């Protein structure tokens, strides 16, 4: 029986897979993800894809807000930039879907760096308001730059394909999503234990002290914005390709709030937390849809109440987590694990 987990070197302490048991669990989970599409129906696969896009976006935002401490209320704008870049490259310039994804990320990263410039001068509240303004400015651009984005009519996007292999159904797209999710999460998990990740955390904790110990604030703050927006851009490009159409309505202010809600509910400054949060925030409205179906069966005419109910519950989740569990689901998960680690002799 294990009664503790002791490490003798820093290298051991920073390992991603801390023990054989963890490796085993992760392996089982990956196996589950690989088997899942063969057992699930189209609706479940649709949800799985949605969760995948949310995970990529949320991990990106967590790198910026959770690790570097730069609050962004404009994440949806970067998702939108990526989505439009991919759509325009594929439809206008004949790029293949695969090539358009990194370009979507890069253009979004560029946009993120531009929006990140105020972060060098202001922080906290002011940065928050600046990114909020960016959200509305980008929304305006999506609607009004009609020669490029086709305004509110939107752009139709063809299916991705490799040779003669087409990705049309939810099941086929699932593999693309899974690939990018694993890539994104793996990169983020490694990033946070590198020099750059430690610099991010130092900036979050106290930027002046970080600067004094030799961290270049200009470089690292902008890197955080760029990486976070890159993730957002990739998430956006995948999402709209999955939906087959992109319109400005896909990137409202509330989407930015949803991403923030994901990392708050999941846990700020934790890659695992962003995944928990993304799953949780994506599943909650679906659960309510399911409930409204049941209500429809028993009490006809009352199901309209579920439309605003979703908003109320979404808001309540944010508020209650902030007040009662500010470190999110990741912290609950840790407590749960620790309880069983020493069970039944918890002291």
């Amino acid at each position, binding site marked *: 029986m294990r009664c503790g987990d002791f490490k003798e070197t820093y290298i051991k302490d920073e390992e991603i897979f801390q023990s054989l048991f963890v490796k085993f669990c992760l392996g089982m989970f990956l196996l589950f993800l690989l088997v899942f599409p063969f057992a699930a129906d189209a609706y479940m696969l649709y949800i799985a894809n949605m969760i995948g896009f949310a995970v990529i976006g949320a991990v990106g935002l967590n790198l910026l807000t959770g690790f570097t401490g730069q609050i962004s209320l404009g994440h949806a704008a970067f998702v939108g930039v990526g989505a439009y870049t991919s759509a325009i490259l594929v439809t206008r310039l004949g790029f293949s879907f695969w090539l358009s994804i990194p370009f979507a990320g890069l253009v979004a990263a560029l946009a993120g760096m531009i929006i990140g410039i105020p972060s060098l001068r202001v922080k906290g509240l002011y940065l928050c308001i600046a990114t909020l303004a960016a959200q509305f400015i980008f929304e305006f651009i999506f*609607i009004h730059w009609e020669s490029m984005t086709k305004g509110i009519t939107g752009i139709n996007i063809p299916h991705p394909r490799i040779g003669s292999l087409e990705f049309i159904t939810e099941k086929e797209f699932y593999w693309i999503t899974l690939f990018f999710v694993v890539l994104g999460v793996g990169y983020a998990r490694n990033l946070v234990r590198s020099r750059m990740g430690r610099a991010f955390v130092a900036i979050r904790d106290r930027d002046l002290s970080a600067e004094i110990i030799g961290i270049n604030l200009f470089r690292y703050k902008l890197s955080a914005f760029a990486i976070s927006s890159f993730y957002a851009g990739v998430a956006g490009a995948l999402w709209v390709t999955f939906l087959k159409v992109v319109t400005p309505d896909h990137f409202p202010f509330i989407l930015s709030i949803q991403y923030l809600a994901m990392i708050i509910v999941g846990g700020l400054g934790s890659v695992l937390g962003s995944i928990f949060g993304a799953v949780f925030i994506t599943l909650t409205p679906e659960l309510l849809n399911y409930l409204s179906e049941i209500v429809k069966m028993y009490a006809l005419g009352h199901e309209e109440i579920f439309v605003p109910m979703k908003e109320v519950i979404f808001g309540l989740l944010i508020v209650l987590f902030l007040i009662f569990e500010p470190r999110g689901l990741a912290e609950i998960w840790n407590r749960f694990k620790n309880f069983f680690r020493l069970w039944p002799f918890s002291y």
Partner: protein
Amino acid sequence: MDILLQIIVTGLATGGLYGLIALGFVLIYKATSVLNLAMGEFMTLGAFVCFTALTQIKAPFYLALMLTLASAVVLGIIVERLILRPLIGEPVISVIMVTIGLGVILRGLIYMIWTPSFRNFPQIFPPEPLNLNFAVVPSGLWWGFVFAIIGTTIFLLIFKFSRTGVAMRATANDQQAALSMGISVRWVFALAWCFGAMASVIGGIVIGNISGISVYMGDIGLKVLAVIILGGLDSIGGAILGGFIIAILENLTGLYIDPLIGGGAKDVAPFLILVLIIMIRPYGLFGKEIIERV
């Protein structure tokens, strides 16, 4: 030339209104260092309460106004006590997000209670527009301006001369010193939220009167952010002056830029101005510059 003058006069009238809502933001920020992003929803709620009092209970306007103000007080106290007080001392992101969450909850509740359909406000002001020879101000805007100015003046007088106002200013200046002088900081926090909510519900009633009410009228609350950033987050005078400047600039953009790009510039202009101010002078015209020492 005529149209320019007309635009500026309309801008001034709108500016009074922006100033009033901005005052709500500033009152809360000054005392409690919380930027309340749910302000727009406070406005919507106020407008709907007043609307219900006028149409369902058939109350006269002054009674409906009293009722709305009373509900603002209740709202302010509940929000401060239940949501903001547990978060004192938490990082900025928590505080910002909690007000956003609150906004989402309020919006959902308003949707549930009043349904999302658009409604016209009953006539409460005399319909004749004000004619100033060189320009005409529509009745709604004119009376809105009057209301905003009266509201702002009352708040300013309270802040400047009453015992409560002095306590609030003392708390804003230094919480610990205020506490040691026997001021109940908790009470001041609650009061700041009440005042902020009252300012915003008056704004809501006036805006509802001008352009009708719906669940989505709260979006104007975000536009007012430009006003308070321009004026300085903690400056009451700045909020009022900022209101006029932003409203006039917004109307001018509507006049000159909109035809060039086919509409919509008016709505995004405040945000562009906002980004410019943050880049150039983040603490605004009269805000207190924060100097960080290690």
